[in-house]
């Protein structure tokens, strides 16, 4: 409080030894002290109870309540102590100029540039060598070191595990026969041997009983009403998991993009910019559903060299 002693008030003038700012805010300090003690006793009681419950086991609610009440007691007590049993103020502090004086700046610049020039300029060749060394290390850090974090994308994003003749299987690895799905039914399927794979996940929908053509050029892709689309949303890559049978639409639960099942999964609503890639299906001689070929375009969200 030394910096503020020059502030005088009328009361201080009457009794020069008494600074009214040092008075307490509390009118009855003794009572306040008892109240604060009570708060701290609440804290002690709660923390002791916590120790007991730690040994005996308890519920999260009891633990939370005791901890909240314990710290609440300490908190209220401390705030009251700081507010009512401390000099009430107000106190004042002067601001000083933040920046250095002109002399200091000049002295600094002289030291930095003056001495620095002697040290550095005459040794510019050493400086260049040092720069070269750090540059090489920088390139090493950004190149090989960073690159070993993961493989080069290459064409990993262009294709999936689906290929010609891949058997369509459930998430438990069971092959699917043509009678397994009723009209209106749908399930998540994978290429045989890649169950659970991210980019292989595909929605198998039975939208009818006769062959379905979703767009010209896909005449044979939907045998006996079976349609298969990549389950990976073309917007943000979420798994599309809602099939609305009445409207023949697929809904992505993340950002609510809607795709029209009967028209090549063309997006009809929401942020998805492209249709879901369609997997051409066929039915083999044993009645199992297989893929005629893999997807003819990358699945999932867009990227630079899409």
């Amino acid at each position, binding site marked *: 409080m030394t910096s503020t002693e020059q502030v005088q008030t009328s009361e201080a003038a009457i009794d020069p030894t008494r600074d009214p700012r040092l008075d307490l805010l509390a009118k009855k300090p003794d009572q306040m002290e008892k109240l604060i003690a009570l708060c701290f006793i609440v804290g002690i009681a709660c923390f002791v109870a916590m120790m007991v419950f730690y040994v005996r086991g308890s519920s999260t609610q009891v633990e*939370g309540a005791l901890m909240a009440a314990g710290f609440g007691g300490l908190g209220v007590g401390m705030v009251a102590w700081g507010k009512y049993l401390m000099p009430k103020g107000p106190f004042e502090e002067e601001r000083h100029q933040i920046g250095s004086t002109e002399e200091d700046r000049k002295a600094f610049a002289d030291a930095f540039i003056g001495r620095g020039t002697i040290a550095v300029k005459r040794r510019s060749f050493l400086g260049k060598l040092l720069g070269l060394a750090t540059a090489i290390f920088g390139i090493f850090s950004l190149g090989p070191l960073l690159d070993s974090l993961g493989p080069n994308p290459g064409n990993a994003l262009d294709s999936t595990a689906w290929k010609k003749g891949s058997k369509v299987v459930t998430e438990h690895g069971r092959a699917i026969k043509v009678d397994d799905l009723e009209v209106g039914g749908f399930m998540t399927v994978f290429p045989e041997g890649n169950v659970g794979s991210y980019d292989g996940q595909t929605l198998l929908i039975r939208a009818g009983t006769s062959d379905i053509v979703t767009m010209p050029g896909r005449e044979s892709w939907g045998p006996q009403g079976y349609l298969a689309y990549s389950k990976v949303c073309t917007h943000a890559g979420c798994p599309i998991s809602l099939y609305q049978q009445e409207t023949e639409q697929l809904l992505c639960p993340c950002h609510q993009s809607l795709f029209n099942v009967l028209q090549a999964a063309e997006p009809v609503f929401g942020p998805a910019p492209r249709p879901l890639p369609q997997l051409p299906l066929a039915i083999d001689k044993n009645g199992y559903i297989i893929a005629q070929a893999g997807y003819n375009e990358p699945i999932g969200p867009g990227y630079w060299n899409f």
Partner: protein
Amino acid sequence: MPSLLKKDKPKQTGAEKATAGAKWLDDRLGLAKGGRVFFNKIFPDHWSFMLGEIALYSFVVLLVTGVFLTLYYVPSADMLTYHGSYAPLKGTQVSAAYNSTLAISFDVRFGLLVRQMHHWAADIFLGAIAVHMCRVFFTGAFRRPRELNWIVGVTLLILGISNGFLGYSLPDDLISGTGLRIMFSVVESIPVVGTHLAFWLFGGNYPGNGVIIPRMFMLHVLLVPAIMVALVGAHLALLVKQKHTQFSGPGKTEKNVVGTPMWPGFMFKTQGYFFLVVAVLAGLGGWAQINPIWQYGQYFPYKVSYAVQPDWYMGWLDGALRIMPSWEFQNFGYMIPNMFFPAVLLPGIAFNIFIVWPFIEAKVRKDYKEHHLLERPRDNPWRTSIGAGALAFFFMLFAASSTDVLANYFNISLNLVLWFFRFATYIIPFFVAGITYKICLELQALGRYGGRRKRFNVVLRTAEGEYFSEKTPARPGDLDVLSGEEEEPLELTEEVSEKIRESSELIGVSSTELNKLPPPADQGVKRVERD
């Protein structure tokens, strides 16, 4: 032999021991001079200065509870069979990360309390930062010389959001896994380097080779918190160096700070405040369930849940993703994907504007002076309305992240909700900014010290039945005073005043009410209205 020691050395009192200890330290560190200045640091007494403290103390709780959680969390994507005490999941395949999070929730003593406190502390940390930032913005506390501390603060906000997302993703549950997949797509959408960055982060094409969880763990518990601790230190050091701002008021100037000194008043109060923040977080952790991952289940890349919403501070980005039109730009064999605009460009622009705002404002308003007195928001309607508009924009984006929930709750078409947000997100901020500007002007007119909009008129009737309409003396804050169009104070003639006095005696008006009347004129009549 203790008895001998006692003889040789007289017993010291506690105070003597403390003095000797302090002397020992000061001989080596020389802290007394600086320490005294530090103890005298003044903290202004205004409630809005506590918002940053909430953030600071939530951060402390995050560090402490986070250390507890690292004792039990296993950062691994290895699959194993769950044998813990949560019956519905017994025997299912879960990752080691998910398994350990379940163990923290059900099998570690106080584990669920601490886990939920940690999550609540993160949400409240970022909430407090956001509100603290609003306080700093709307009062102009970021102006010279505090631009650097504003930048440190914005950086802390960005790091806080990032670390929140990382921590949210660590349990490997169904909802956080979906969020992580969206993050892969976001990184992938960056032109030129996107796929490389995504493959580096995840160790390959999504879902990667299992490195993402240990990598996120390292970032979440080590790298990002270390940077944040350093920046919090810098934030506080700058605050001490540059001293606090304060609102103007009696005795407060650009040259001083008025309030409570660091020692002992502020230290006691702020310590208590820390305990109160812990108490609230413990109450929330014990009673308000948050992120019940056992209900979501283990993440599998082909599974998803309904109502996939991130934590609140990511909501604006999720909302931006939802209301983005289905555009994608493909040219010369290269694509700028849809996600790039809402998920990379929008936050990139937003955070960059935040960072450079002090310099934009200084340039636009040509105000390069030092400011230590805060502005009231109304006194700078230009800035206040821009801030309010920006807040409205972010709030609309945030609300748009719940389009599906809103449509379900109000039983209206999702289509309608989406189209509403696609337009309203851009229109409403302008309305909010305009209304805010108007409100600022109105509040300014109210005056600084609670004056009234218009000067009072007093209607008086004499005993004879004559009426007078008189304006009361001008007071600070009156509209005509503020606008500088103050009318000449009206004064009554001695004759009229005398009449009023007589009549008021007749009708029994008290003397205090009479005192409110303008004093009898002694400089002649200026103007008297008489009807």
